[in-house]
């Protein structure tokens, strides 16, 4: 994160001052928010092309004009990594796109990813001054995506400078956003970094979870190649705690380990019929389709292509599953969620996109049982109708059953997407590691250091289910403090 004084100083540069004064705030606010162009919903719901098409240069520069370049940029308080928002947006306004991309890279390791998947309406954009003036927030996410895409498409991605080698080995366990951003920062500092990944693909949830119509694989691959060119080594098919232990790493000369093994354990609801054939976790469904390419005719991995598919849950994972089912030919693709649409944790944009693609939203409904045919294939789901009561601890109104009110709906595939638990492999395989009762690794919040000094941790394994940007921020903080800790030794 940048110093406040530096951000101020940048704001006082001549070009910024004259740009700011060149247009009245009133006129800036009067510009309507630029809409992200998207593929036609009828066509896109039958293919895997990215839904959002990206802003054109003119659109981006117009949207950038809306930003008031605030003296107190409250938007930055909403960004977990403190992206220097006004500076990068003002670079876009003057058409200096490479400088905008460079500004983003100072704080965010994966701007092309975050611009696409951050829940902006709850983070940066929720704090934009425009909202206080009854206007719509500046599209910070869309602009971030624009700048990062511009840099990537220009073909001259700046590989960050790498300090002289320190000859010190450090490891990241897991190659999701937390592990990748840790690796990038440590490589910049001159460490010899190895990233160990259990699966046969690098990228964590960015690859096996989030579908390509929302986050194309090439974007993640470019970032991974970038890290490779900075000297980061990737070891696939290696499960730390099984193939090798942290003690093995230590014996092998590794001085610090950052555990970023994510939240990989799917939760089920333990209701009758949940083990029928055709009922599966969203992890299984998305892994088959995204990691194993199961929808392709050349893939050996099979996947169901149900015609009446119900997805249980209201988060991003649920939206991704239901939209995938639609793309695989579901005639009726349903979201079943026990609260109302307002309480859904998914990104607003994904809910809008899902609706445009013809997804049925069965809200205030909770499954209580599944029935199957004589072959054990699911055929029906029994739903309990709910209503909203008082607000609970999370501030959301708690759903409660309306006694006796149930519904029976025909289904031939059910995808359970009611959350995940932390991956237990590392916590189980390291003795003396402090673990919470939820199975997350306990760390010092500012340094990300665990109860074992050489082990740091971050991302979903520490937070339970969180977001890409929070995981990334953890990786960066862990890199900073591991460097300090190793330098003191």
């Amino acid at each position, binding site marked *: 994160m940048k110093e406040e004084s530096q951000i101020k100083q940048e704001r006082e540069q001549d070009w910024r001052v004259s740009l700011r004064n060149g247009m009245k705030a009133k006129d800036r606010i009067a510009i309507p928010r630029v809409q992200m162009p998207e593929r036609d919903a009828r066509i896109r719901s039958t293919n895997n092309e990215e839904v959002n098409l990206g802003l054109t240069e003119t659109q981006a520069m117009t949207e950038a004009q809306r930003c008031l370049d605030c003296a107190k940029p409250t938007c930055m308080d909403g960004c977990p990594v403190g992206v220097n928002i006004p500076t990068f947006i003002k670079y876009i306004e003057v058409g200096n796109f490479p400088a905008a991309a460079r500004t983003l890279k100072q704080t965010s390791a994966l701007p092309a990813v975050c611009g696409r998947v951050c829940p902006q309406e709850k983070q940066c954009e929720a704090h934009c001054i425009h909202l206080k003036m009854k206007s719509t927030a500046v599209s910070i996410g869309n602009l971030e995506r624009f700048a990062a895409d511009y840099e990537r498409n220009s073909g001259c991605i700046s590989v960050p400078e790498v300090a002289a080698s320190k000859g010190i080995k450090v490891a990241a366990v897991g190659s999701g956003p937390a592990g990748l951003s840790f690796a990038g920062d440590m490589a910049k500092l001159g460490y010899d970094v190895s990233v160990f990944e259990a*699966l046969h693909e690098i990228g964590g949830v960015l690859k096996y979870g989030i579908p390509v119509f929302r986050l194309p694989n090439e974007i993640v691959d470019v970032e991974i190649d970038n890290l490779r060119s900075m000297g980061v080594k990737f070891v696939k098919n290696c499960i730390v705690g099984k193939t090798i232990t942290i003690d093995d790493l230590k014996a092998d000369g590794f001085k610090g380990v950052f555990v970023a093994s994510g939240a990989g354990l799917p939760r089920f609801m333990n209701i009758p019929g949940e083990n029928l054939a055709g009922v599966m976790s969203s992890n299984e469904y998305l892994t088959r389709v995204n990691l194993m390419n199961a929808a392709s005719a*050349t*893939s050996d991995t099979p996947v169901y292509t149900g015609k009446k598919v119900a997805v249980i849950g209201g988060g991003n994972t649920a939206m991704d599953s239901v939209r995938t089912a639609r793309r695989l030919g579901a005639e009726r693709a349903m979201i079943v969620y026990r609260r109302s649409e307002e309480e859904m944790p998914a990104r607003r944009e994904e809910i809008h996109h899902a609706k445009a693609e013809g997804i049925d939203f069965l809200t205030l409904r909770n499954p209580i049982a599944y029935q199957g045919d004589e072959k054990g294939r699911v055929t029906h789901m029994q739903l309990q109708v709910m209503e909203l009561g008082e607000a609970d601890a999370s501030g959301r109104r708690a759903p409660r059953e309306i006694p006796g009110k149930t519904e029976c709906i025909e289904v031939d595939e059910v995808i359970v997407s009611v959350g995940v638990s932390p991956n*237990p492999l590392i916590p189980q395989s390291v003795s003396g590691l402090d673990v919470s009762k939820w199975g997350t690794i306990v760390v010092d919040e500012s340094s990300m250091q665990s109860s074992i000094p050489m082990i740091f941790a971050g991302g979903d394994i520490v937070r339970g289910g969180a977001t890409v940007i929070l995981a990334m921020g953890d990786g960066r903080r862990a890199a900073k403090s591991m460097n300090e800790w190793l330098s003191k030794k």
Partner: protein
Amino acid sequence: MNKIISKEIFSENVVQFEVEAPLIAKAHRAGHFVIVRVGEQGERMPLTIASSDVQKGSINLVVQKVGVSSAKLCALNAGDYITDLVGPLGKATHIENFGTVLCACGGVGTAPMLPIVRALKKAGNRVITVLAARSKTLIILEKQMREHSDEVIIMTDDGSYGTKGLVTNGIESVLQRESVDFCVTVGPAIMMKFVGQLTQKYRIPTVASLNTIMVDGTGMCGACRVTVDKKTKFVCVDGPEFDAHQVDFDEMIMRLNAYKDLERGAMQRFAEQPEQDRPAM
């Protein structure tokens, strides 16, 4: 990428591979398995580690050809590379000197049973192995089983080899003549179900090694879930071995059949267009 050091053909449909995998060899205990993937469009397929050699840094896999993925693997030769190989996975088998142990296997369970038989023998047990198949040509690994068992009983459905009858007939013949302390069974779910029912009647503690459908093999997807003692368990991390008297085999059979039609389709494609579908090497 893991190099195949050598290949030994046990029979038309059964092959043993020695594969370079130094880290897995070091971490391996009896009962562990690996997940392999052949080719960039390959499926992730679980296989039991038959044995390992820490000095050579290698593991042995015994593979029976049943569908596309196993056929693609069996088509590889010494010097070829397996695209992906990860492990060791699952919990190690609990091996001790029980006394007299009955090992009942058949079909797809014969290959994964071999290392268990070997480990039990090494621990000092008297090992009686019942090897079952539909007919003579489908009896595999007989020689290897004989090497590590005190007695091998062969059962065929059609009586073309050994004794005519089912695996349970073979087991019962032993139970009627001597006392058995422990039983292990690996094979088609329906077979394990009946073995469990029989040994329960005789009150013999019995372990079944479950071969459910798997995707990741690390506890991430839940494809491998089974109900044991009314609780949902993940075979890849909680197993693969469970108390055969507590497993809900009917549910397991149902779930195993879930992808049958899709698998048949894949096999047909593989058979019709072998060249195009073959993994790039």
